[in-house]
């Protein structure tokens, strides 16, 4: 059963990723990205990460994607007749080289390592949210605070950048 769900979620996310890159209309791309995000959330459930599943659905599919769709609707872009970069042939060659290197690295990796302190039965006893919370607020407290400050900076930066120019700014 888990194998069936894994095959379903992974095939649909790969197809949705290809559609996101390949579709012409930006709104359709956004909807394909929504499909991708929801199916990746399904993969997280298969990996016993329910908290990340909820965060993925709420933050990614709920907030970030709605932001993208807002900007798409706001700008009201016309679909171009040419949708690739003007020098895409050269760039595609570079992309193929990077993908080849990725493949080589993956084939050489051992996929094993030292086991940590959170086996599946321990995590499932109290729930994944409990395990994430205990770890987050003990060992990773400083990175957590740094991410909070980072998000504050991102919000201020976005507001300053997207502010409508007032008459005082317009005299340039």
């Amino acid at each position, binding site marked *: 059963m888990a194998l069936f769900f894994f095959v379903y979620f992974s095939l649909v996310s790969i197809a949705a*990723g290809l559609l996101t*890159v390949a579709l012409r209309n930006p709104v359709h791309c956004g909807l394909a990205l929504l499909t991708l995000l929801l199916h990746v959330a399904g993969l997280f459930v298969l990996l016993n990460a329910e*908290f990340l599943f909820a965060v993925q659905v709420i933050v990614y599919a709920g907030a970030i994607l709605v932001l993208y769709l807002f900007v798409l609707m706001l700008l009201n872009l016309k679909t171009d007749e040419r949708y690739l970069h003007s020098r895409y042939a050269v760039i595609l060659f570079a992309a193929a080289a990077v993908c080849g290197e990725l493949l080589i690295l993956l084939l050489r990796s051992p*996929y094993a390592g030292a086991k940590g302190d959170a086996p599946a039965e321990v995590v499932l006893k109290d729930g994944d949210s409990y395990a994430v919370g205990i770890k987050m607020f003990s060992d990773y407290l400083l990175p957590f605070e740094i991410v909070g400050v980072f998000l504050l900076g991102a919000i201020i930066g976005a507001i300053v950048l997207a502010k409508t120019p007032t008459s005082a700014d317009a005299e340039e």
Partner: protein
Amino acid sequence: MVPLSAYVAVSAILFATGLIGVLVRRNFIIVLMSVEIMLNAANINLVAFSHYLESMAGQIVALFVIAIAAGEAAVGLAIIIVVFRGRLSTNVDEMNLLKW
């Protein structure tokens, strides 16, 4: 039981798709969406290794990645709005204001 390498393969395919999208597409918004695909591929990897190597650290880092992605989307879209206001275009190969 699904092997770990299957998750790594899915994540590698998604990462390559996102990479090609970032490099090849002309619309800046689609480029940002492709960056989101790449971040999701990295998240799948982190969570899969976290599950199979029985450590919580991968899930914590995946949470941080989601937070950084939210900030990146906000700032990136603000930059798109600024550029669009000046040029009426969001094509990456027409953006050369900072070139000299």
